[in-house]
């Protein structure tokens, strides 16, 4: 029988050097709540909002009732809300606006004025856009200091790193091949990897 589970993950580890985030669950919860997702629906000038939620993307009302731990694993959602102007909307409105102004002033528009018009339209459209919402599962194994983010999008990953840094004052490190060699405690391997040449298999 097949059981469903299909997602893509980028892997991280919390570096051993430097500031290491707390493993105290109460403090983790407090910090998550402090950096919880805040809606941008009513703030028209805010284009993007990033914050922690539960795994469904909902913002917990009370940190005391929030239970994001599954054994030694912290399982929360990374919610990103972002306003985007629909494709083509800006261009056509800009052309309309330029045409109307040309008609009224009866001359060609200066580049600076065109830019002003464009910016004003952009601001207006962004303010009227409903933000798109993206929720990615974020798993942090507190025992192994490993993190899995259920998104391979560069933008979502950059947002997660920034939010994690703001929340825990530490930037998680992408688990690259060299980072894995470091994690398994083979420092001499790291030097040899950096010095090695690709093998000629043919």
């Amino acid at each position, binding site marked *: 029988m*097949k059981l469903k589970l299909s997602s893509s993950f980028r892997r991280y580890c919390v570096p051993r050097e430097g500031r290491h985030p707390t493993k105290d669950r109460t403090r983790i919860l407090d910090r998550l709540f402090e950096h919880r997702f805040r809606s941008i629906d009513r703030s028209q000038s805010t284009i993007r909002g990033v914050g922690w939620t539960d795994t469904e993307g909902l913002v917990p009302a009370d940190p005391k009732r929030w239970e994001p731990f599954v054994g030694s694993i912290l399982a929360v959602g990374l919610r990103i809300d972002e306003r985007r102007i629909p494709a083509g909307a800006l261009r056509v409105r800009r052309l309309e606006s330029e045409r109307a102004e040309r008609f009224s002033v009866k001359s060609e528009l200066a580049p600076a004025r065109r830019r002003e018009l464009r910016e004003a339209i952009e601001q207006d459209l962004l303010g009227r856009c409903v933000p798109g919402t993206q929720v990615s599962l974020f798993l942090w194994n507190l025992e192994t200091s490993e993190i899995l983010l259920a998104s391979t999008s560069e933008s979502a990953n950059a947002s997660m*790193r*920034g939010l994690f840094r703001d929340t825990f004052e530490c930037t998680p490190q992408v688990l690259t091949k060299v980072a894995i060699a470091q994690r398994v405690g083979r420092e001499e391997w790291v030097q040899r990897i950096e010095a090695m040449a690709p093998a000629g298999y043919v």
Partner: protein
Amino acid sequence: MGAEDRGDGPRGLRVKIGRIEASFDEAAHPVADERRSTTETTLGREFLLWLWYRFETAGGVHEIEGFGKVSVALDSILELSSDAEPGRILLRGDAPTRRPEAAASLRSGRLPRCARLLVAHGPDTLEVTLDADRFDLCSVRVVADAAEPEGGERNFSLEERCGRLFDLSAIIDRLFERFLGERLGKSFDEKLLPEIRSWIFSREAPARRRAAGAS
């Protein structure tokens, strides 16, 4: 404009004011550095080649500390590329490793850049498409050999999902550690490299025969 609008709060906001766009949530991006590192890129591809070689010559069974016997097979997706050769070869469908194109690509110096792996561990089979360049775990799927509960398909609990995901991640790390041990070992140039080279050229012949038989 308030503090939130300027984005100087701790919540990671990006604000666009006119033509100026400011980001406050973008951390330094180590993946970009990795992309520049040819050695790291090649190492990931060599790792997939090693898994492929072990799969075809030793059944893909690996004894992994903490997990016991884990078998790794290459499944329905195989992408091969080379920095020296233009273009990428993408093979999809049943047994892509047995296709003549796969053999020809290996022989032309291409290495696997991406492969669908079946990782069998205990009663579970974990499916993952491993991106050799970034080491992302893509399209992860778990097929469990569990008895079907009454009423149809059972869903994994979050705890089960988390456990299996971190298991998969740890298995990939251990396999990579084992590969590194062999790749960086003293006997690589004298033993493993000639063996893999010989395997690449020996598998060309049956593939050609199969292709000739099919036509």
